[in-house]
């Protein structure tokens, strides 16, 4: 009886603690959710048109590397600001280029989509590791640093209630700041425009779409390439806005967590963003609990959980969410199925 009482008290204290730290956590949550959200949007765009892409992880890694390499090579020539901006452009371009490769493999060659994605992940790991060892490590030099985040005036941040929310979305670097905008635009585009209707038609019933004159191949190419450009932006975020350096395999499974966020969000941009925020929160919790240790028994309990468990939390949560959600959400009907136009073999 006493144990239950203690447990209830701890849960209550945890709730109070979370509410008190939440305002400070919000910007960290969006910061951590940014690459996941962009990756998840890449997944949404592809799968809505019928192309599965498990190579998001690899595309992010490649874009992160080449974005970093651009800043690394040019910051002494054109200054760090310009080289960082150019790095973002390069990363997005690399993402789009790899999207073209994936689209060609899955749409035109009709290679197995899961294997094509696996190939992308291994290739990215190899190419970035290879070039890192060949070019960056022996030079012993650093990169161009990170893009300076924008700071809201304190007066705005101190506003009651909306202050922390404004800080969450605007006290960020340019990529994190643009995520919400991209999500909203894509949500509207996917469900309110001709392009969105075509995308969904191609993903649900390509043959019917073809009969009414929609070019299935073109639509799928477009979506995969554009989606992968967003994954490229996620890569740029990792090296140019977040860490300012490149490590081998630094994406650390984010491309796959993004896929879980996509499934959690039922293949909608807004839902995927929600999923990404959830994973961001799980990660942020591990950070905040170590920085602002709660007082009393709760602090003792939370500190007694090893940091490695907090670090593993997002991965374990992905599994739990997938197991809980998948059976109850329906993917696009033609997801993962190559389309063979009649009369073609």
């Amino acid at each position, binding site marked *: 009886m006493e144990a239950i009482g203690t447990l209830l008290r701890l849960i209550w204290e945890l709730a109070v603690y979370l509410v008190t730290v939440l305002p400070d956590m919000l910007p960290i949550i969006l910061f951590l959710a940014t690459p996941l959200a962009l990756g998840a949007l890449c997944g949404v765009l592809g799968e809505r048109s019928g192309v599965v892409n498990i190579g998001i992880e690899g595309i992010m890694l490649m874009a992160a590397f080449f974005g970093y390499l651009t800043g690394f090579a040019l910051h002494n020539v054109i200054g760090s600001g310009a080289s960082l901006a150019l790095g973002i452009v390069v990363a997005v371009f690399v993402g789009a280029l790899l999207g073209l490769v994936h689209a060609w493999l899955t749409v035109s060659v009709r290679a197995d989509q899961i294997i094509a994605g696996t190939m992308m992940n291994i290739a990215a790991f190899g190419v970035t590791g290879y070039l890192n060892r060949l070019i960056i490590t022996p030079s012993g030099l650093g990169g161009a640093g990170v893009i300076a985040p924008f700071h809201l005036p304190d007066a705005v941040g101190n506003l009651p209630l909306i202050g922390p929310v404004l800080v969450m979305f605007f006290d960020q670097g340019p990529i994190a700041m643009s995520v919400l905008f991209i999500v909203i635009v894509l949500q509207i585009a996917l469900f309110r425009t001709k392009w969105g209707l075509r995308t969904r038609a191609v993903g649900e019933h390509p043959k019917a779409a073809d009969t009414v004159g929609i070019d299935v191949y073109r639509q799928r190419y477009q979506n995969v390439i554009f989606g992968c450009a967003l994954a490229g932006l996620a890569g740029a975020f990792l090296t140019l806005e977040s860490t300012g350096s490149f490590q081998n395999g630094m994406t650390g499974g984010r491309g796959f967590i993004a896929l879980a966020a996509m499934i959690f969000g039922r293949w909608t941009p807004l839902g995927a963003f929600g999923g990404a925020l959830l994973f961001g929160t799980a990660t942020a919790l591990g950070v905040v609990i170590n920085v602002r240790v709660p007082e009393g028994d709760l602090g003792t309990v939370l500190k007694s959980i090893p940091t490695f*468990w907090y670090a593993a939390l997002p991965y374990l949560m992905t599994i739990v969410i997938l197991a809980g959600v998948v059976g109850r959400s329906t*993917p696009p009907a033609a997801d993962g199925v190559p389309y063979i136009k009649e009369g073609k073999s």
Partner: protein
Amino acid sequence: MSRLRSGARQIWQVASIPLLAIVLAFIVAAVVIVVSSLFTSTGFEPLLPLAAYASLLAGAFGSGTGIANTLVAAAPLILGGLAVGLGFKAGLFNIGVAGQFLVGAFSAAVVGANLADAPAAIGVPAAMVAGALGGAAFGFIPGFLKARTGAHEVVTTIMLNNAAVLLLTWAVNDLVRAPGFSFPRTGPIGNSALPILLGRNLHLGIPLAVLTVFAVRWLLDRTTLGFEIRTVGQNPNAARYAGMRPIFITALTMTLSGLLAGVAGAIQMLGVIGFYAPGITASVGFDSIAVALLGRSNPIGILFAAILFGAFRAGAPLMQIETSVPVEVIDIIQALVILFLAADLIVRRVFRIRAPKVEITELKTVTQSWAGTASGTPPP
């Protein structure tokens, strides 16, 4: 004579695309090496790929030590390749070999260290079984989740790989850290080490891995379970109508696949590494996928593919030392091999051949189950 010729033709039909895919991968990787040499201090070196491949070959086969290293590197790849291949047969894609390998290696290291002073006849089997069970348990989780909830193994196994690295690091730091070492690691395995059969490093795990090839072949071709696994892989719905239990087979196959990966970790631990420390990386994970695809998920094919990739891994360090070409070029070659197998159209066009398609048909089930059409509702 004509029988000989038709036999040769049969082998060519099966092996031509995989072999040509490897040739093409080496050609493209050579271009990568030449182009990237432009960005190094030595400048443009058109002959660098030849030098690199020569020392790769020398490192892998050029000496007794080289051949021994190749076989030692091949052993875990044989088991890992079988793990992925067995999954393919049931329409499952186990990308979790890396994690199952680590859990197997860790379990074997802990049990081995505890039985370090026991006779080898007890310590070695006990540590091996621990590794196998650890891997099996870690394979069971995604298998069970896939079977019961439809959570796709491609995502869950990758997440488990990441979680395994972190949780095992914690376990070595806080639970089983051996005293008297300057860094967190498990204790010495003493008598539990796999016996060395020949030379300096040819351990018992190598013949064991080869025997497993034939065991898996027997399982798939000669047993009812193997038949059920293959039927579920070809068509889960048909399997269900025939009275089989796709859900049970899915969970069991994933567990067996994890078991094989766990044994791979155990033989690597007890035959080569000797103790578990954080930072042990498992390139076995990705290598196993390439091996299984190259071997067309056929156990005998996997044996040859594993020896090939074992040779790459064994020869790569010498290549990096002698020619400064980074060892990661092996990963690039691996990805290219998979690319040319997945898109064998490219190989056909380049070499103008008419071999039959090499696709592993069960992969269709893997991809379809992503969207839930294979396990639940019938395809539209």
